[in-house]
């Protein structure tokens, strides 16, 4: 995994995501989820493209039950886009890179 994607735990969620000064993409994933592992390279590519403009964070739902349940997540991969501490878009399941780029561009 790219070192520029931060893996966070529940107790860092507020600081890293909700209080971020730039928009954040949170990737809720788990090691047992094939599609989560399959989209990881796409997320890494996006991180390189949008480095400094958008923050990329991963939350392992196995180890961190609080934030997934707060956002009603019952399926992964779920990607949530945050801007100014608010959810602006939520995407569940496999998704094309172009769609993610479009979503990011609307937030920047």
């Amino acid at each position: 995994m790219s070192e520029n994607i931060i893996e966070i735990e529940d107790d860092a969620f507020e600081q890293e995501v909700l209080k971020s000064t730039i928009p954040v993409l949170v990737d809720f994933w788990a090691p047992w989820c094939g599609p989560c592992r399959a989209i990881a390279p796409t997320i890494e590519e996006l991180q390189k493209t949008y480095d400094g403009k958008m923050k990329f964070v991963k939350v392992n739902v196995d180890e961190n039950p609080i934030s997934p349940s707060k956002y009603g997540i019952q399926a992964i991969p779920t990607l949530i886009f945050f801007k100014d501490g608010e959810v602006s878009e939520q995407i569940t399941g496999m998704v094309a890179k172009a769609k993610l780029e479009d979503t990011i561009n609307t937030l920047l």
Partner: protein
Amino acid sequence: MPQSDYDLVIIGGGPAGLTAGIYAARARLNVVLYEKAAPGGQVIISDWIENYPGFPDGISGYDLGEKMLNHAKNLGLTIETEDVTGLDLTGDIKVIHLGPEKSVTTKAIIIASGASPKTLNVGEDKFRGKGVSFCATCDGPFFRDKTVVAVGGGDTAVQESLFLTRFVKKLYLVHRRDELRATKILQERAFKNDKIEFVWDSVVTGMDGLFAVENVNVKNVKTEEESSIKANGCFIWIGITPNTDFVGDDLNRDEWGFIFTNDRMETSIPGVFAAGDVRTTPLKQIATAVGDAAIAVMGVEHYIENINS
């Protein structure tokens, strides 16, 4: 023969597409594979693969997909993340549209875009990710000690239901007939599993809940009797529909949209081949998809030799 960007464009990165890539790379064709999301295809959402030779203990769907991907990459196959939006198949040089502004040209095409799970169309869309799922390995652990409904009677429905019983308290398997279509070994396991209760001759007619699924409504197709199952999840495995939105009307397809081919994987247009779940194959398995793809690349090589001579 006019020039083209590629000899061969492969559309789709599942087992058929990756196998086509392996054979094409070894044939030293000028080839590219386009995958719109992530390589692997439907395989990567499968919990466990037990019928693909060479893995006597079985292998997880993700691991098998990753091995196939690495195999293709090791041979130097170019794989690009692109969404094919349309095809122009009228000339000898075929045009592949990648969005509104980008296109490439090629002599031959292998369509290996696969298929996607069919939906029930009973209003389940608003509960996607809120109880409605097509992927047990992704979402199963969210239903620990809960009750879920699964729909379908084929291999996927039974295999994935068995996987779900590791987590759930109870699983109702709703099937529209009074017997399963799944292979016998899976049936035996399902009948022995005391967490699974079969709801025969029944279809799901809808579901409701405030924020997520709370009730799944079913109807018995023989008695017309309607009932409601209290459940937090509804997993849908009622078959697949081909990913052929980009194909257009030039290729002959069956009433469900699957592409007709002959036994050499040739479609109704010379130079255009189809392999795997996207074509009218009698069996949709990884083993058959990879076989299709190998045959298709042989056809591509012959086709290119002919048009070049």
